[in-house]
């Protein structure tokens, strides 16, 4: 039976179980007064979205959340003045905002073969989110030199990656777009989901290419059946037997330290097949980031540890994406009776 999220539940959770100090670990104490917050609040059974709100202290923020039946809570950017109705964010100067990646399962609708659509997900399609988290985190650390990365469960259909290295908060839209472009291989629906060719990457993008042939290739070849791979090879007339493909998949699955060297050894030296394979693996398994969330410096993002108003789940921290179970993640009803 679906439980109903009442004002009492919300109020009790934020009053007794919500640790406001943990939020400070994400957004820091400096310029707190100038930070924008946004909320979806419910009044007389009507939900409304309010933003351009700021608080003098974290205690006041908590009090607001306890008192106002907050269905969803969001954190925005820091401005030169405290955002308010008189000083809405469109009129004041933007100072900084965390660099955030948003991964939602519905972005993969075109390639999900398990039957799930939209907000639904199963263990099989959740692995797409796991792949994306691992790939993005490794790229951010190794290529971009980031050190503090924290993943949060959104409470419904995906995860948010918060980069907490302070200098990243000052990145303007151009830098954020550059990071996104570096990480985007599947162009949006409007571009016909065009896939960037991995084999056409310049020499300078070698670390990225090697990472694709390690992580994405391993995941792709572990999820595909020999028969499906055989169909792909037939499309380009690669003349590779089903038996060879069975062996390839077996070797990949058994390989404990699969990397781009293993890929080069295991995959047949057939240029057409390799090109087709790399396009398929990118299309089916490569991270699909909601670009607007990362690039828009004035956007609000879900507050860690807040309640997701539609599911009642808490936006908890994810320590290890491979061990995190979204189906059994904490909900507000575990805290309040």
């Amino acid at each position, binding site marked *: 039976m679906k439980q109903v999220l009442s004002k009492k539940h919300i109020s009790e959770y934020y009053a007794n179980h919500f640790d406001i100090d943990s939020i400070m670990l994400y957004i820091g104490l400096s310029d707190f007064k100038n930070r924008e917050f946004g909320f979806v609040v419910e009044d007389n059974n009507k939900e409304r979205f309010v933003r351009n709100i700021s608080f003098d202290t974290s205690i006041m923020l908590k009090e607001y959340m306890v008192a106002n039946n907050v269905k969803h809570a969001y954190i925005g950017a820091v401005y030169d003045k405290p955002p308010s109705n008189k000083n809405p964010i469109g009129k004041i100067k933007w100072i900084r905002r965390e660099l955030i990646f948003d991964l939602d399962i519905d972005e993969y609708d075109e390639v999900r073969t398990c039957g799930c659509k939209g907000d639904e997900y199963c263990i099989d399609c959740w692995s797409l989110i796991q792949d994306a988290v691992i790939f993005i985190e490794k790229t951010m650390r*190794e*290529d*971009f*030199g*980031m050190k503090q990365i924290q993943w949060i469960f959104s409470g419904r259909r995906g995860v948010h990656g918060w980069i907490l290295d302070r200098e990243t908060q000052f*990145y303007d839209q*151009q*830098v954020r*777009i*550059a*990071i*996104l*472009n*570096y990480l985007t291989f599947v*162009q*949006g*629906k*409007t*571009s016909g989901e065009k896939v960037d060719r991995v084999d056409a*990457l*310049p*020499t*300078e*993008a*070698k*670390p*990225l290419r090697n990472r694709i042939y390690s992580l994405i290739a391993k995941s792709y070849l572990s999820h595909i059946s020999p028969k499906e791979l055989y169909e792909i090879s037939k499309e380009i007339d690669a003349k590779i037997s089903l038996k060879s493909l069975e062996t390839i998949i077996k070797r990949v699955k058994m390989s404990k330290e699969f990397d781009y060297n293993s890929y080069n050894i295991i995959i047949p030296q057939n240029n057409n097949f390799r090109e087709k394979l790399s396009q398929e693996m990118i299309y089916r398994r490569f991270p699909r980031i909601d*670009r*607007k969330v990362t*690039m*828009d410096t*004035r956007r609000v993002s879900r507050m860690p540890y807040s309640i997701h108003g539609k599911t009642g789940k808490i936006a908890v921290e994810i320590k290890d994406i491979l061990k995190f179970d979204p189906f059994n993640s904490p909900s507000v009803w575990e805290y309040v009776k």
Partner: protein
Amino acid sequence: MSSFYGTIEEELPEWYIFRKPEDFEIDVKKWYEYAEKRIEKFVNSEQELWLLYRTPWMTEEQWKEVLEEEIGGHYLLRLAVARNLRLTSWLIEVEADLFEFRFVNSITFEEKISVLKHLYGEDNFLTIQELNFLLKENNILLKFGLVETGTRKVQYTSKRRTTKKRGGDLERYVAVRFDKIPKVVGARKALLYKGWAIVKIADIRLSTKRIFENRLRDIIKRSEEFLDKDPILENTIDPIREKIEEIAAKSSRKAFSDIDFFENEGVSKKIDCYPPCIYELLTNLKSKGHLAHMENWQLGTFLKKVGMSINEQKQFWYKHSIDNVGQTFEEFEKKVGYQIEHIYGLAGGGVDYEPPKCQTCIDGYFCFFAHESIEEISKSISLRFSNLSEDKLNKTIDKISQLVVNGRYQEACAEYFKLHTGGLIGSRVNHMLMYTKRAYELLYRKDKKKEVIKEEKKENETSIK
């Protein structure tokens, strides 16, 4: 500041205009002469003259005068343009071209490195040697299989063995903090390693030029303080300002201007042909009653070029401007008429100004796609084309959003044009007048429309073949 190559300030070449100059005194007459010579240098097509070097037969005195001319000329031009945004843009453009030419032609690698360190900041720029040291690596280039600098690369082909010489200093690798060269990073042209982008100097040429331009813009802005403090200085620079006005106007683009066409067809009254930037400026003006200075200029020069007469334009601003509250037309004209006359070349430098091209709008005027949020763009498109089907609108908005997100504003404008007129304008829009003329032809001249569609069909067929 110090580096492997010594102190950065000491290493900076004489041609580099941000180098701290030696103290010297120049009389006003000489100052004018230097400034005029510098302007001539900019308009001279013989770029060899742009190089600055000391010949063996040059005495110490002569060399000193060359340097005085260089620094003094530039300094006066900087002051002369400081209060005028258009002239500032012109000076930045020509100084940046000069900088780029001298940078590419600079004699030693060390000279290039010192300039790059100065522009990017020492914390953000390293040689590969320095990066190896910082990250405790033996040889990063070797680690990632990048060919070491200055070597000869042997290429084998099926027919014969050829030797290709690598392209000198510009082909050598350097390391820049990745956030300083976002476009290069986004295009995956840099090897990213622990936050450092390892790139060929040639690949950051454009980014370097942009940083130079931004720094010069800041310096020019600060020069205004000198003028505020010293009114005599303001009068001193007047003749040079006029000279620049004249030169800048000569070098402005006129390619899309076709005043006869616009006047004859009465395009100024056909608002439905206006490009999104102008349409948005008009909407804003009507709702708010005022625009920013540069936006006023953009709208004013556009209206002039599509055939609005000076009197019509005065009436137009009187009708829409918030400044008219409690004023008669005569009073209003007295107050702001000068600015409108300036646009028509009837005041100030007497120049017949052109509206800015798209790239200039993106950089410093108003471009609907570069300067509005995606939400605003989508809202505005839905409102302007509310007669079109929701499906068509959503598809175009999606496409435009994708282009805007990727910084491809002129291509986004071409998509907008397609929705607006049902015809094509090429892959990108380059000028607001080009947009208007084409839109007018498609929306108002049915004979022309047929012709255009026929041409497009033919083009498509050829490209398919």
